[in-house]
């Protein structure tokens, strides 16, 4: 009997320890938070990272210090590799590159090596032509390309394989155009692309809606369509691709992820804080000012969304690779 009492006692003590451990776990976070922007200061990723930092801190959602770390290189790979070895106090901003880098053979990393936490915002992509362009809608433009693909120069930047480029490959695919025939001129960045269009060096451009919105409103160019689900508030006259008969919505999303092997408590913590942040006025304002759109998904939804996106991009790259 004594033996049993001893064992029972030991079990109780152990259970007690277990409880105190759980309490330690709920102490998370217990040191400075780090948000990795896998790009140089000034880009979309950097802006997203700093916006999250501001929104979390100014709304007192996270009491710990939050720092933004810029780790540029390799289309995000340098920053994400850095994240891979950190604990749940470090997060990194991401985008569809976390999927396409691997598909296009530029990186070994996949999104599955990390813990998805949230999708925060999205931008929409657009096709724009010069005001005096002979093409007044997507269909006319695509038919012209189909007829003589080499004659129509397309402005894109800063590199092939980004969402601006991929969305057009998908769009052309919908019209049965061989992606190999598309005549892409690759410019340094979004600004250069618009300049090229304004200078008449290209026939049309594929770029973020925010890049061409002002010029469209000023009448210096014309947006033929956007990849969103519905028309934009400020651009009521611009129809979506879907309205023009192409069953295609193409978000240019940005999200946030954590290192591999996060505990459920840690995931729950960030789910709570990031959901609360997405609701704050400050965050809404930032989204508004940057011509983004709120696109919040929690950890679980993000996980499913990434899977879906991976399948979509895989299809896109493989179909194009097959010469369709």
């Amino acid at each position, binding site marked *: 009997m004594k033996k049993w009492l001893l064992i029972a006692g030991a079990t109780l003590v152990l259970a007690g320890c277990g409880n105190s451990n759980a309490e330690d776990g709920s102490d998370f976070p217990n040191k400075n938070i780090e948000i990795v922007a896998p790009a140089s200061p000034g880009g979309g990723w950097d802006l997203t990272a700093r916006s999250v930092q501001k929104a979390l801190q100014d709304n007192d959602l996270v009491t710990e210090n939050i720092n933004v770390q810029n780790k540029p290189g390799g289309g995000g790979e340098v920053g994400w590799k850095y994240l891979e070895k950190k604990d749940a106090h470090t997060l990194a901003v991401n985008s569809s590159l976390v999927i396409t880098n691997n598909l*296009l*053979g530029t990186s070994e990393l996949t999104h599955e090596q990390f813990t998805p936490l949230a999708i925060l915002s999205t931008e929409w992509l657009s096709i724009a032509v010069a005001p005096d362009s002979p093409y007044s809608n997507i269909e006319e433009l695509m038919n012209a390309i189909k007829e003589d693909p080499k004659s129509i120069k397309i402005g894109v930047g800063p590199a092939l*394989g980004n969402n601006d480029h991929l969305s057009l490959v998908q769009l052309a695919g919908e019209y049965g155009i061989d*992606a190999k025939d598309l*005549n*892409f001129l690759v410019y340094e960045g979004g600004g250069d692309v618009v300049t*090229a269009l304004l200078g008449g060096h290209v026939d049309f451009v594929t770029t973020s809606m925010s890049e061409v919105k002002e010029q469209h409103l000023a009448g210096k160019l014309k947006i033929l369509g956007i990849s969103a689900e519905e028309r934009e508030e400020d651009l009521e006259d611009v129809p979506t691709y879907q309205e023009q008969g192409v069953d295609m919505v193409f978000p240019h999303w940005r999200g946030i992820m954590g290192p591999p092997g996060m505990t459920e408590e840690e995931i729950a913590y960030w789910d709570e804080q990031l959901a609360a942040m997405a609701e704050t006025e400050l965050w809404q304002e930032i989204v508004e000012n940057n011509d983004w759109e709120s696109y919040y998904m929690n950890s679980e939804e993000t996980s499913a969304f990434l899977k879906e996106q991976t399948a979509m991009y895989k299809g896109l790259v493989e179909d*194009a690779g097959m010469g369709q």
Partner: protein
Amino acid sequence: MKKISNPNRNVMTIQLKILGLVTALILFIVVAITGIYILFEYREDVADAEKMAYQTAKTLSYMPTAREALQDQDVIPELRNMMDNLLRDTDASAVVMTEGERLFVTMGDEDMILKVFDHPPIEKALIFGSSYTERVGKAEEMALVGVSPLLVDYGDYKKVDGTIMVIYDRALIIRSVIRDSIPILTVSAIALVVGLAGSLLLAKNIKKDTLGLEPKEIAFLYKERKTVFSSFKDGMIVTDAEGRVRMMNPAAKSLFHVTGSVRGQSLKEVIGEPGYPFLKDDFRGDEELEIREQAIIASRQDLRTDGRRSGTIFTFRDKTDLRKMSASLSEIRRVSEDLRAQTHEFKNKLYVIMGLIQLNKNEEAILFIRDETQSQENYAKFVSSSVRDEKLQAIILGKMAKASEQHVSFMVDPGSSLERLPESVDLNGLVTILGNLIDNAMEAVKQLDHGEVVLFVSDLGTDILFEVSDNGPGIPDECFPKLFERGVSGKGPGRGYGLANVQMEVKLLGGEIEVQSDPRGTTFSVFLPKIR
């Protein structure tokens, strides 16, 4: 035993067993290790080739010469020269540059180029501007292709105008892996041969150690030895050189009152008494000793291997049985002796009768015969009326004859009375007890003029009583304490078993023996319980 007489087959089996096992083992290890080595080597080489193809393609695509060649025909020879050098510096089979999807400049293995160009893996480079490696073709004809886009700078913008493909032939990689594997294959083969030789040696060595016997035969011999030892009535103990028990058969165990396994224990501890003479190294030959009240003949023989003592065999023969046999033998001899005495007596009487008849004294002869017959009958009548037991009657009559021959008076006390003796008292026991006591008594009074031995028997009460008295000189005082000890006698060497046997027999029957002795005579009284 048939097996042992067929040594040829035995050699085959033991060697085959070891050879087969060791060979299989070595073969397995060698094949496994070599296979794994080759597999890893192959994988590494393929990975290296892929990496090289990728990097070479990428490097070449960055070179201004390659980009310029698309616009300026004059640069093409320089490009060819560059590609040629590259082919020589690397293991690549071919380098291809395309303009769009069309071949532009090629260098190297043309078959390879044509094969790859069936389905050139350049779409991803052309469309998405990415660099990568692809495997083209199937199985043996597979080629590893590194692809990189040619991003030509047009000032304000860049454009993918073509691709670079660096092609590695997988067959060449496999060939080089095989070439690299020759040393390890050689070593493996040597290991196999050494292993075979080793196993042959091992088999030979084992064969030598087992005197050419198969393990099965050894097991059989072992069992046989055990059974043989167990079946021995004699005790047998085998020890090793250090005196530890290797074997102790059941007879030896019961002799020393040992139970259970004693294998490996020191013999001295097992026996529990270090004083036995056979434990000494110089003990030789058969010697009789007393072990736990049993007469034992112990002998000891050393086991010698290569001239050194490697063990000792002890045997213990129980003498008790032997002695019992000799005792009953002497009883029989005694009975026949008694008969002989009787015969002698009758012969004497016959001579008297013959003499009387020859002298024509027929009347006297008839008288003599009648007297003799009368006295014989009377005595016999007396004996048979007072002593009803026939065994006892026989003994008394026998002793009577012996007494008259030795001129000793042997009487049965007139007060004697005895019904039948119980079954437990057999003739042998009776002869031992009474025969010895009466003989001793007669021997004591033989020298006297009027020697007299009286036997008194009675079965009144719960015990049967035999009393043998003589009027001899009595037992000397110094003999008294050792009276019943074996081998102690006042009669000289080789004697002294009589009284010991009497006592043993009385003990067996659950009775007691008492002695009274003074210079006027000695009386032995034996009490035997009627019911045991």
